[in-house]
């Protein structure tokens, strides 16, 4: 008889708190429309994982099967990269290759946060996994966390996707703090040039080769992203390109979200660590923004045609949210100022920069942490 009521009998306060957290994620997804494609499945996955004796988790639970088949072996994030690659248009970046440097500078938050996490007592691999929230790129965060700190995957994924959707709230105050009105009013010329097809086809191949030679461990990250982009740009695989952009992206996102939600069991999630990780994720986004803005200001010391420092902040990977935020800020200062294309170029560069940074972390952390032992 007791077995009939085991769900009621084993329902604890922790389960209720997790339901509230899951409800908050679902609320943010539906009402506020913050990354609904991820936050809603994550929220529902968290509910499934926190029902006492849930058959969805445990050794033979469907979510455990999905976790082993798609997250533990990094399959889902890598498939997402194919889809993302098929969605990205690198043309604005090819028209303004100078913006690539902002895609590098705005990765500063990853490393600043990693150092902060080390000072809080996390080991190198955990700290790197927390720092990678600053990549502002969900699949990269999941990929690195899966390699280095699977026990922190839940909070890291939630932080990464939550803050990505909060870019319009996080970036403007940081940018305003670091720039003067005069700097925010800077206009930038935009050269519109036609990029021939062969350049668009050659670009993903060359990027894969260069990044792969520098950090071979990044090949599955960069390579699959660029594979998706090659499918898009080659012009002869339209069906595959559309499948990658729609069916593949939707299906994997759905499974990825609900599976990550299943890692949010109360005993693993309701910890001091989770709050710290959420706080450090915010720090990562702030330092990313600051890194991009300060780098642009530094470049302005030497450049004849000044760069609007706000464009530097678009060097984070949250695409196209960050570029839109920068354009809105520019128009607020001067309704006739148009820096959207430059911001989009920097934003696309940020997508490349975040993946390269993730690849380099994957390569460097094991090598250098071995020095301690």
């Amino acid at each position, binding site marked *: 008889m007791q077995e009939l009521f085991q769900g009621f009998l084993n329902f604890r306060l922790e389960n209720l708190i997790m339901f509230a957290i899951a409800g908050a994620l679902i609320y943010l997804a539906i009402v506020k429309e913050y990354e609904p494609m991820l936050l809603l499945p994550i929220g529902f996955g968290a509910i499934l994982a926190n029902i006492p004796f849930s058959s969805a988790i445990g050794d033979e639970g469907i979510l455990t099967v999905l976790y082993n088949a798609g997250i533990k072996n990094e399959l889902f994030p890598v498939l997402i990269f194919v889809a993302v690659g098929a969605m990205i248009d690198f043309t604005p970046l090819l028209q303004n290759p100078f913006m*690539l440097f902002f895609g590098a500078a705005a990765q500063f938050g990853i490393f600043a946060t990693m150092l902060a996490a080390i000072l809080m007592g996390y080991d190198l691999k955990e700290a790197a996994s927390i720092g990678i929230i600053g990549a502002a790129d969900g699949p990269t965060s999941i990929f690195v966390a899966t390699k280095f700190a699977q026990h922190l995957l839940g909070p890291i994924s939630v932080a990464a996707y939550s803050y990505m959707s909060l870019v319009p709230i996080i970036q403007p105050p940081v940018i305003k703090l670091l720039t003067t009105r005069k700097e925010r009013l800077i206009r930038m010329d935009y050269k519109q040039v036609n990029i021939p097809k062969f350049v668009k086809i050659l670009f993903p191949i060359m990027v894969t080769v260069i990044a792969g030679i*520098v950090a071979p461990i990044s090949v599955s990250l960069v390579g699959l992203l660029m594979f998706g982009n090659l499918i898009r740009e080659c012009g002869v695989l339209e069906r595959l390109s559309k499948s990658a952009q729609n069916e593949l992206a939707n299906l994997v996102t759905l499974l990825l979200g609900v599976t990550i939600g299943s890692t949010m069991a109360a005993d693993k999630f309701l910890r001091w660590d989770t709050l710290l990780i959420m706080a450090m994720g915010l720090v990562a986004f702030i330092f990313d923004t600051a890194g991009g803005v300060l780098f642009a200001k530094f470049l302005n010391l030497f450049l004849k045609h000044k760069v609007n420092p706000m464009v530097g902040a678009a060097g984070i990977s949250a695409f196209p949210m960050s570029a839109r935020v920068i354009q809105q800020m520019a128009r607020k200062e001067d309704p006739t100022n148009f820096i959207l294309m430059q911001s989009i170029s920097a934003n696309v*560069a940020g997508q490349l920069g975040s993946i390269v940074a993730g690849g380099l972390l994957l390569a460097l952390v094991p090598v250098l942490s071995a020095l301690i032992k």
Partner: protein
Amino acid sequence: MFSNEIMQNFYIGLQITLYAMGGVFTVLCLFYLMVKLMVKLPGAIHKKNTDSE
């Protein structure tokens, strides 16, 4: 204030930061040179209107 282990990790973390930030800039610099080279190939680019305003 911090234990030896934390300071050792921090030192390694600083090294990782230097190498990785250097690496990201180097790789993206290579991408930049590659794009510059590709668009300089004969007939690669047809300039259009040069001002957005």
